[in-house]
């Protein structure tokens, strides 16, 4: 019977499943109403009916899939629309990210897997599930309604922010990625700004990306060690890119829609425009961090603020702040490396060594590890 169905519908799984179904149905029906005169024919008919049912259902699904967005589309508007679909709040953040990379940015499953250090199978499964969710839950392929635009854009920007950080923070000469997540995130942010020119936070995010990318040369030594901002050769930075990013941020500020991305970009701009670590406007950076914390209370931001506090109010105050954050950020390597720097400045060398060691235990990033080892040796 399986073979008969297989010939008819050419789908092995389907044929097998439907025969199973028919047999189960037969047992139920025959138990209550007796065995039919020609049980074989009854079974084949029942199985065929089930196969047709399923094919119909599957064709419905395929028709819907055919209507769903193509893998790569041309033109800015289509891509942005696709981004809104991929970043729909009905999808988990992980699914949004994987789907955006695959569908909008055109990454392969293997490239996504290598960027996030997860298995290809996991990525593939995540994408398949997300696509199914889009079809099954009826997530539309179009720009959000004007009333929802701000909130929906937040989702898109959050995904781009994650994408950028993954590329920017994990990048190192030892792990060459064949696609640059950070550059692609910046490109998609640029697209969003072009299509939605009056969204200040999208502009802020793009400015932030540009300010970070403008300073990429200078972040690593020739041997791949991370160089601290204080010691970077600022002449390697791309001055023209910094100027245009600051102009973009300026235009965003004129829209009078303040937000966390603009504030982060403003902090990055303070660093990017400062002639040196010492000549940086630390009081302004501290104020920007305070504003950022008002909008986005987060221990990681408080940790970054502690560095500004160090330059403005001294190591004692900064260390006290870092100690207050230790309970919540105990597993975060940058808490320990910051603590180590502060302890060293205060002459607490043994404590500093222990902090650097703890930081070393908590990160796998080769550039950061090599930097931490250098700090430990330079006592």
């Amino acid at each position, binding site marked *: 019977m399986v073979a008969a169905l297989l010939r008819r519908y050419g789908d092995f799984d389907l044929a097998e499943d439907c025969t199973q179904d028919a047999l189960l149905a037969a047992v139920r029906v025959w138990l209550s109403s007796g065995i039919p005169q020609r049980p074989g024919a009854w079974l084949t008919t029942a199985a065929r009916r089930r196969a047709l049912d399923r094919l119909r259902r599957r064709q419905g699904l395929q028709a819907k899939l055919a209507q769903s967005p193509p893998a790569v589309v041309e033109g800015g508007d289509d891509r942005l629309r696709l981004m809104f679909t991929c970043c729909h709040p009905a999808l988990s953040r992980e699914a949004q990210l994987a789907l955006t990379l695959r569908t909008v940015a055109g990454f392969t499953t293997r490239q996504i897997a290598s960027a996030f250090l997860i298995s290809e199978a996991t990525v593939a499964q995540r994408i398949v599930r997300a696509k199914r969710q889009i079809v099954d839950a009826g*997530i539309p392929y179009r720009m959000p*309604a004007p009333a929802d635009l701000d909130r929906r854009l937040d989702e898109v920007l959050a995904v781009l922010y994650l994408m950028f950080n993954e590329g920017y923070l994990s990048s190192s000469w030892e792990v060459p990625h064949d696609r640059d997540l950070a550059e692609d995130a910046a490109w998609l942010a640029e697209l969003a700004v072009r299509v939605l020119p009056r969204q200040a936070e999208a502009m802020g995010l793009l400015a932030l990306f540009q300010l970070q990318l403008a300073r990429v040369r200078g972040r690593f030594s020739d041997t791949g060690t991370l160089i601290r901002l204080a010691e970077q050769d600022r002449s390697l930075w791309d001055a023209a890119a910094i100027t245009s990013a600051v102009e973009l941020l300026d235009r965003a500020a004129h829209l009078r829609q303040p937000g966390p991305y603009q504030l982060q970009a403003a902090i990055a701009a303070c660093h990017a425009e400062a002639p040196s670590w010492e000549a940086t406007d630390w009081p302004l950076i501290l104020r920007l961090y305070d504003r950022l914390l008002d909008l986005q209370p987060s221990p990681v931001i408080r940790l970054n603020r502690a560095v500004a506090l160090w330059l403005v109010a001294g190591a004692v105050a900064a260390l006290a702040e870092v100690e207050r954050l230790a309970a919540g950020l105990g597993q975060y390597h940058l808490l320990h490396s910051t603590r180590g720097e502060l302890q060293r400045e205060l002459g607490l060398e043994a404590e500093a060594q222990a902090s650097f060691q703890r930081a070393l235990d908590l990160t796998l990033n080769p550039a950061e590890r090599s930097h931490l080892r250098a700090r430990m040796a330079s006592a």
Partner: protein
Amino acid sequence: MKYALLFNSEGGESPDEAEVAAAVMSEVDQWWGKYSQAGAILGGERLQPASRATTVRFGGQSPTIVDGPFAETKEAIGGFAIVEVPDLDAALEMVKTWPASSSVEIRPIWED
């Protein structure tokens, strides 16, 4: 797309008719009327409190009959609507203005 909207209310009980403030009831009526007229709502009902439920459990040798809801939870379904709208965003649009309940679950319905 067809969806079931499952209206949850807190306290594990769907509120008695009498307990629901008249103002809220009139808002609910308005909401229901608006979307019924627009053709989005195909049907739906308000449910009596979960404490009045009877549950039949399978798995043993024979089905057992238990008084009360399937599970004691903080939220319980207090009503449902079957809606037909173009897509999830349209369903979300409707649900955002729903005046009662502590949460609403939007579940796609299998369609052939």
